[in-house]
């Protein structure tokens, strides 16, 4: 019996070091590798296709061409003035509108979560805001306000308030009735109840709302700028799109994606982790 066990163990042991060699032992490094591998794979496919299959550098830029554009954008060089000025315009619009939508959506969501009548009253406008494509909203506001900062800001307010409202209302509905009864019995007033009870109770929903609406906001603000604004990243994207020159277009896409990922990892993920720790204990 013992003789049959020995060869099995001996056979199993050499396989382990071979598996370990593929990925780093350190968990952080392993995670990083696992995250980077698909991206590297994608870049390899992209390079192969643009170098050997679709060889039209203007329409199908190689990774190297896009990297060159990235360097140019980061140096501030652009056909319509400093890229940083355009980026600042885009992100200030996004921040103003996103903050406004977040506050309005949260307050309305708390009311909607507690008051069925108010929720039903808001349900159809919210559905309309979410179902009508953002391009259509941008055109509607262009007609209403002309070429103005109000266009992207209003479009963002309308389109981002809706999901924040829904997420918050859902969070408030999930608050334990026992805890609401506790607040009632201690006669907790509306302001204290909002800041000391409801908002901390629904904190995980709020962070989820913030993440989703921020990512959505980046897309909408660019669409609004492409369609009708005199500055912003969207204007540059429109310019290169009209010129049928794809390398800077892809470069801007990568920058926007990296900004979204950075905000998510540096702000929202740590916030959500902290809230989860407080919730679970």
């Amino acid at each position, binding site marked *: 019996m013992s003789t049959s066990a020995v060869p099995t163990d001996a056979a199993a042991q050499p396989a382990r070091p071979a598996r370990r060699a593929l990925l780093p032992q350190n968990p952080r490094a392993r995670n990083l590798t696992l995250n980077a591998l698909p991206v590297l794979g994608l870049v390899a496919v992209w390079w192969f296709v643009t170098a050997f299959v679709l060889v039209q550098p203007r329409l199908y830029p190689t990774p190297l061409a896009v990297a060159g554009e990235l360097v140019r954008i980061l140096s501030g060089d652009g056909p319509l003035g400093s890229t940083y000025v355009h980026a600042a315009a885009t992100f200030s619009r996004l921040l103003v509108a996103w903050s406004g939508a977040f506050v309005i959506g949260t307050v309305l969501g708390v009311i909607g979560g507690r008051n069925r009548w108010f929720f039903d009253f808001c349900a159809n406008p919210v559905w309309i805001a979410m179902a009508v494509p953002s391009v259509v909203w941008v055109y509607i506001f262009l007609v209403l306000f002309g070429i103005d900062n109000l266009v992207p800001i209003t479009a963002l307010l309308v389109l981002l308030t809706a999901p924040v409202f829904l997420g918050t209302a859902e969070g408030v509905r999930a608050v334990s009735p026992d805890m609401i*009864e506790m607040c009632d019995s*201690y*006669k*907790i007033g509306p302001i204290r109840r909002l800041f000391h009870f409801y908002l901390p109770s629904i904190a995980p929903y709020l962070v989820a709302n913030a993440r989703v609406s921020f990512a959505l906001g980046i897309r909408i603000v660019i669409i609004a700028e492409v369609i009708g604004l005199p500055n912003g990243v969207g204007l540059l994207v429109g310019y290169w799109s009209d010129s049928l020159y794809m390398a800077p277009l892809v470069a801007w896409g990568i920058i926007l994606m990296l900004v979204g990922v950075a905000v998510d990892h540096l702000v929202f993920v740590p916030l959500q982790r902290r809230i989860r720790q*407080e919730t679970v*204990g």
Partner: protein
Amino acid sequence: MTVKVSLRDLHLAFPGRDGAGDKVIYENLNLDIDEGSFTVLLGPSGCGKSTLLNITNGLLKPTSASGIIVDGNDLRDQPEMSRKMAYVFQGARLLRWKTLAQNAEFGLAGLNVQPKEKWQGLMEKYFSAVGLKDYMNHYPHQVSGGMQQRASIVRAWVNEPEILLMDEPFSHLDEITAATMRRILIDLWRQDETRRTIIFVTHDIAEAAQMASDIVMLTPAPSSICYRRKVDMPWPRAMESDEVIDLEKELRRAFSEKAGIRF
């Protein structure tokens, strides 16, 4: 003795589902609670004991009542009367993102206890009384279930309410912790200069016998008071003392004879 709380001709029914008839909880129930008493509402699950506390606190409106009187005033006309009360629930119901002290402050702020300068002193007094002074700055998840429940008693007591409503506060605890909690509660109640009125809900006969100065026994719904007994045994009462055991037997007998519940 002065009557502190009086419920007159209380009627409560919940509409039945799917065409079923109304579920009647009380029909013309009358109950007087003496000032400074430790009144235990004793009855089987579902008889409406906790509901009586909610009606007394104004959290629930009865279908009809000729009076929900607190200190001679009808609670429905003067809802601020409910500020004289504090509630201890079955579970601790603490806010997990606040420390135990901040949870107590939450209650103080809600019931608007004045002056604010005395809050710290009140909290230290009552956290010390329940043996939690060193844990005031801990979060609920950092302490045990028994400690959480003690903190919830402090949240109520720190307001120095005239009436304390307690809804099976120890039913979730193990027997050893519950016994300690009962002793702490009785000590708090007896040591305070002002003897507060406590309305304590339980379905535990032994607990009622050990703590009550007044026992009100309720039948299954539709509930009525089937037996009432003043208890003038001194505290602390040992669970295994002859007097407490005799009282338990008496209460069991009363349940069998008056409420038709067999043990």
